[in-house]
């Protein structure tokens, strides 16, 4: 099967196609300097282990706020043997209106700076949050394979990234909640804080905590709708999603203001227990995303490794479709080592869906063979030879 350009973007309807028309790296991981000219088609990177394929995906992931798909420390991203600075530059094609993005760590007078800088059209931007006004990047990496069996914190982080891609203010809310919570934990540990101060900080926790929970609920409901549009027993089985958390559950049957009042009360009465535990024992920082393999009615954690991967791909693809619909622009989708673990039928289905989404998907693999079905519908690069 060969997929054609005419099929691009069938599935995202009104969303305008957005792609990276150029990518540049300087002192990034194993790349001293790289310049890549691209068109709107999916990008396939093939090459031996350690060649730097995932590093390229990681570079693209820095076109969204945060620490990239490896969640690396910013200093660790710099090329060994370099001066500690690094940069990723990109130009957005299509709906991206040729916006030029530059991000990375600059070299200050006293060595590499601590925070990531962002420049949009060569003008400094206040924060990397501004990236979300221009493009959305979603990803799936082998490190996420254990998502359903791993700790709740991984699923919560995965969920918050999903929310962030559809609701750019989510990051600020999560940060505000966590900052207030850390402040309260510090006050409780000090034993000296007066009750008014605790009450004041708990009011902030309740306000931001309920906003975080409400945004998660809304995203999960939208995502469930996007998943419901796909064939439940197709190549990527439908997932049934549920949020498990006191605030998220409370929002089912009560207005946000009531939940906020109750959470504020719960924090006030839980001070003793929280002080003894050294942490806050109730709140959206403990919520979990429960995933069920819908056709089998089986918890994702109990499914086979292959089924878990298929479920995860299904969620990421539904999310990409949702992001396209809500933002009006197709997201950049990064799929690291995704083709190798799929049988030919599922692989073909994945390629068809990606081409149908019309998004520039970046895929990696050690061998070119699994990607031959894409033919000219993708742009193929051998790493490092073609770079």
């Amino acid at each position, binding site marked *: 099967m060969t997929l054609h350009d005419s099929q691009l973007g069938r599935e995202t309807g009104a969303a305008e196609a957005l792609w990276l028309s150029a990518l540049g790296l300087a002192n990034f991981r194993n790349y001293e300097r790289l310049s890549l000219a691209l068109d709107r088609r999916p990008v396939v990177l093939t090459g031996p282990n350690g060649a730097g394929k995932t590093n390229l995906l990681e570079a693209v992931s820095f076109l969204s706020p945060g620490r990239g798909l490896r969640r690396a420390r910013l200093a660790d991203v710099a090329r060994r043997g370099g001066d500690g600075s690094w940069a990723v530059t990109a130009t957005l094609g299509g709906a991206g209106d040729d916006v030029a993005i530059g991000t990375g760590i600059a070299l200050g007078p006293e060595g590499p700076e601590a925070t990531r800088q962002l420049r949009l059209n060569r003008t400094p931007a206040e924060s990397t949050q501004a990236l979300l006004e221009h493009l959305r990047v979603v990803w799936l990496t082998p490190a996420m394979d254990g998502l359903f069996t791993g700790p709740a914190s991984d699923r919560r982080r995965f969920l918050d990234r999903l929310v962030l891609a559809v609701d750019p203010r989510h990051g600020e809310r999560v940060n505000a909640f966590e900052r207030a919570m*850390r*402040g309260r934990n510090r*006050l409780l540990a*000090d034993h000296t804080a007066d009750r008014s*101060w605790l*009450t*004041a900080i708990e*009011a*902030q926790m309740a306000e931001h905590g309920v*906003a975080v929970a409400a945004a998660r609920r809304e995203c999960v409901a939208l995502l469930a709708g996007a998943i419901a549009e796909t064939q439940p027993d197709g190549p990527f089985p439908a997932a049934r999603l549920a949020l498990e958390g006191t605030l998220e559950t409370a929002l089912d049957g009560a207005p946000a203001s009531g939940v906020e009042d109750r959470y504020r009360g719960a924090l006030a009465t839980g001070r003793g227990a929280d002080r003894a535990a050294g942490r806050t024992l109730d709140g959206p920082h403990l919520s979990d995303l429960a995933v069920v393999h819908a056709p089998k009615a089986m918890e994702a954690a109990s499914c086979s490794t292959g089924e878990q991967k298929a479920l995860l791909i299904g969620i990421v693809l539904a999310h990409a479709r949702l992001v396209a619909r809500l933002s009006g622009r197709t997201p950049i989708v990064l799929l690291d080592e995704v083709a190798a673990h799929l049988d030919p039928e599922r692989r073909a289905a994945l390629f068809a869906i990606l081409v149908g989404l019309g998004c520039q998907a970046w895929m990696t693999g050690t061998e070119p063979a699994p990607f031959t079905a894409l033919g000219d519908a993708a742009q193929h690069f051998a790493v490092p030879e073609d770079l």
Partner: protein
Amino acid sequence: MSRAVAGPEIERLIQLLSKLPGLGPRSARRAALHLIQKKDQLLVPLTQAMEVAVDRVVVCSRCGNVDTSDPCTICSDQRRDPHMLVVVEDVADLWALERAGVLNARYHVLGGTLSPLDGVGPDDLSIDALVERVSADAVTEVILAVNATVEGQTTAHFITDRLAGLPVKVSRLAHGVPVGGELDYLDEGTLSAAIRSRTPF
């Protein structure tokens, strides 16, 4: 390693200028060069102005503003409503509100916000002085003009609690649609704050 291009006196000037907000090493270098090249028109008057500032600038013992007199010009202005007090985090916020020119009130500068993570508690801010002032000056309204950050709002909540027993109305700045803003571009949090803070037309 870069070599010095000027004597230690000029390097010292550049180093000090680079500590000013908004000036990095390069812009400090440009500013220093500009000052030196415009010695009579700029550097000498600036030096004199700074010497005067060093000698005469004081912190107002009533409100925490900076001025060359104590009480400051604002606290001494008899045309201002003595019963309305605007609470701000720092002097820059006071100046911003004065630039807007919409208030004929007096101010109270807190000197920061409550922040357990930065080790700033109620005793580090002029909150006790605020409570005393509200009682002593028969203030009828306190407007909390603090930032919409976690720390700013925590501080606002704390002050509200401290003023609870006094016969004073406590209000805060409205949160919501910015002037010239379009609803379509606002996030849900801002929209819901705007709805909650709606005013009669």
